[in-house]
């Protein structure tokens, strides 16, 4: 990929903070956004926990009445995009929209609106069908709304996928930037909490049954999501959005933008194995300068991820490891972008948040470096990994810009 694309803006709406600074502060201080879910009834459920966003007001970020009735997933995406554009020092009212792209990864998208629309249809019949809810329930509503808000005319895409959909969106954004010769591309992932989704994963036994959760200061872990742990028992569901601004490196340097990181490579495969991931990190000389932003979520696939990372990286030394999911929950398509954002900030700041994973770990991950406190380390490379429930996944490599 020759490092021609760089990240110059980050916007986050997460259960652990609205905005990049609040999100980073939560990572550094291990302040989890996991709570007892309030937005739907969890009585008699095996789990009550969720990475729920509260006190979020789109109007405070983007006062535009066209989006006041949009689904939460669209609102999270809109606010994250606004944060990313502002963070990049850009102004969407002044750019040539035909040179700007947008790719949004979603898993369930506006599932609240889909459920509400269909429930009204089943209970009350065709006359109850709301055109407003229908038009904002479609899978590409978050991307559509965001393109409208920020004058994105180059290309707008929605990539649907499981947990790795966020990294797939990055891969796709690079492709369309090359294909349509775009100057820049907003790339994000968005997800919203919903009772049907919660019930579904609960019925499949994928949700952590813990009913209390706490990450103590310095990253000691209580009940809840336990990535890479021997006694892991599922994930805690989350919501939110994260958007990155990708630009051509040359243009970013010319306009003196802050460059968080460069996209070095991205490897995607169905059914990831140690064999078909061979060579994914070949361009990494020294593992001592690596930060792993892992996507493990307390499910069976954690060991696959650990094995691949071990086979590809352990030969070069001990990288630092991070995992944001105990802080924000499993935010599906938004997770990969949030992981990439955290990794990009690590590369830019030269600071590593405390590891959220440390106790009772599977042997396949015990070769990495766990830091109890935040550390100042000049990391050269970050690897973002994301594996879906069907074993599909991606590995993204980011490099620090000097």
């Amino acid at each position, binding site marked *: 990929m020759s490092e021609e694309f760089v990240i110059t803006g980050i916007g986050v709406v997460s259960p652990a903070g609205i905005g990049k600074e609040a999100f980073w502060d939560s990572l550094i201080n291990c302040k989890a956004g996991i709570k007892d879910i309030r937005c739907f009834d969890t009585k008699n459920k095996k789990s009550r926990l969720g990475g729920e966003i509260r006190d979020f007001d789109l109007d405070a970020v983007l006062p535009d009445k066209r989006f006041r009735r949009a689904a939460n997933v669209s609102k999270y995406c809109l606010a994250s995009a606004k944060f990313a554009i502002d963070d990049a020092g850009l102004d969407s009212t002044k750019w040539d*929209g*035909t040179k700007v792209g*947008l790719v949004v990864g*979603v*898993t*369930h998208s506006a599932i609240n609106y*889909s*459920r509400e*629309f*269909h*429930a009204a*249809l*089943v*209970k009350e*019949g*065709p*006359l109850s*069908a709301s*055109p407003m809810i*229908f*038009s904002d*329930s*479609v*899978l*590409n*509503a978050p*991307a*559509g*709304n965001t*393109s*409208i808000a*920020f*004058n*994105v*005319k*180059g*290309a*707008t*895409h*929605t*990539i*649907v*996928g*499981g947990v790795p*959909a966020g990294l*797939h969106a990055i891969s*796709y954004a690079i*492709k*369309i930037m*090359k*294909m*349509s010769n775009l100057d820049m591309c907003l790339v994000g992932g968005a997800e919203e909490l919903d009772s*049907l989704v919660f019930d579904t994963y609960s019925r*499949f036994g994928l949700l952590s049954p813990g009913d209390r959760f706490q990450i103590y200061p310095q990253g000691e872990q209580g009940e809840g999501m336990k990535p890479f742990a021997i006694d892991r028992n599922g994930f805690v569901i989350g919501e939110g959005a994260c958007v990155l601004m990708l630009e051509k490196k040359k243009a970013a340097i010319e306009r003196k933008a802050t460059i968080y990181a460069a996209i070095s490579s991205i490897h*995607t*495969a*169905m*059914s990831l194995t140690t064999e*078909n991931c061979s060579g994914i990190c070949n361009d990494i000389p020294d593992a001592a300068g690596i930060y792993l932003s892992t996507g493990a979520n307390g499910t069976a696939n954690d060991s696959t991820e650990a094995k691949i990372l071990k086979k590809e990286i352990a030969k070069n030394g001990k990288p630092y490891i991070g995992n944001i999911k105990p802080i924000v929950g499993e935010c599906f398509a938004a997770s990969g972008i949030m992981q990439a954002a955290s990794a990009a900030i690590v590369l830019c700041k030269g600071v590593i948040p405390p590891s959220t994973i440390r106790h009772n770990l599977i042997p396949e991950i015990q070769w990495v470096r766990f830091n109890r406190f935040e550390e100042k380390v000049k990391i050269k490379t970050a690897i973002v990994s994301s594996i879906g429930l069907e074993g*599909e996944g991606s590995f993204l490599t980011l490099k620090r810009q000097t």
Partner: protein
Amino acid sequence: MGIITALGVGKKENISGILEGQNAIKKIASFDVSGYRGKTGGEISGFNFSKKLKQLKPSRLDRATKLLLTSIDEAVAEAGLLNRLPSNTPVILGTTLGGMLSGEAYHRNIVSGKKAKPSLLLDYLAHYQAIHIAEEYGLDSAAFTISNACASGTNAIGLAYNEIRAGNAEIALAGGYDTMCEFTFAGFNSLQAVTQTLCRPFDKNRDGLVLGEGVGIIVLEEMSCAVSRNANIIAEIIGYGESSDAFHITRPEPSGDGAGLAISRALTCAGVGASDIDYINAHGTGTPYNDAMEAKAIQKIFGNASQNIPVSSIKSMIGHLLGGAGAVEAVITVMAMNKGVLPPNINYQTPDPDCPLNIVDKSEQPASIKRAVSNSFGFGGANAAIIFQGAA
């Protein structure tokens, strides 16, 4: 190529039906439409899933996946790759609904207080159909699902085309699909976008679209790779372009600038001019907004040539297949090109001064089609255009 629409299963039935101008639109049979404005649609009737599966269980599959598997078999067989599809072939599909029929069935039970089978959810989410296809055909490279509303099918073929051009793949499976479900039917009815009479794209008296269902699949292959294995090359993709309107979540940008940008990008990509195009397979939904916008876009990009280039929308015969539309229309465009016959725009009676195009109003019209454009536009302002050229 593989295709399933309301006209039937397979290329033979579809191309003969289309070129004869058969109307496959009937009263919807799969759910009660008595409470809706529109009552008709392009449903696939008599589809029996007979494929013997190696990896998947039929009882766990949504109708969408069954249609896809059938269509992919047809496409792969025509490409001479049955049971020989390389394992690194990416699957790139476009859809708006995924396995919505399964999701509807599950949720209907929940809402009605009945027991809902969790197995209905195994093929509900829109990315699972591509995953299941990859699983069944033993493909371990990548399964991509694009959901850009009604442009999805064309976007999927466009991505596959660019993956091959970029050297990321030699062969790709690409296409689009959607099924007829009440959720969408109710949605388009609530938007008052559905006709109560006939779907008449570009006609002055057009009053809405009619929904359909189906699948279109294309096996794309890098030219030298296809030549070296003596494959039967059906057509060449020579250009693809896309853009977005940044205008409204359901309405198209009325000036046609966004759609025009996608078409002009496709022409630039192909390195051909407006006068090199012999046929335009229009998005042509039959709604007042879309067709007027599309006519403007065609006029802007093709200039005076727009008076002469034949234009038609096959949605008048099979309905609007949403995520399947672009892919099915690509298959039909290529077959019409190879047969040298223009697909008609049935139900066209009264020319609209706002759509001053050369609409193909009769069936079985012969024409020499060397290059054809297929347009697709979707909710959220997604625009895509693709250009095909007959095999030399």
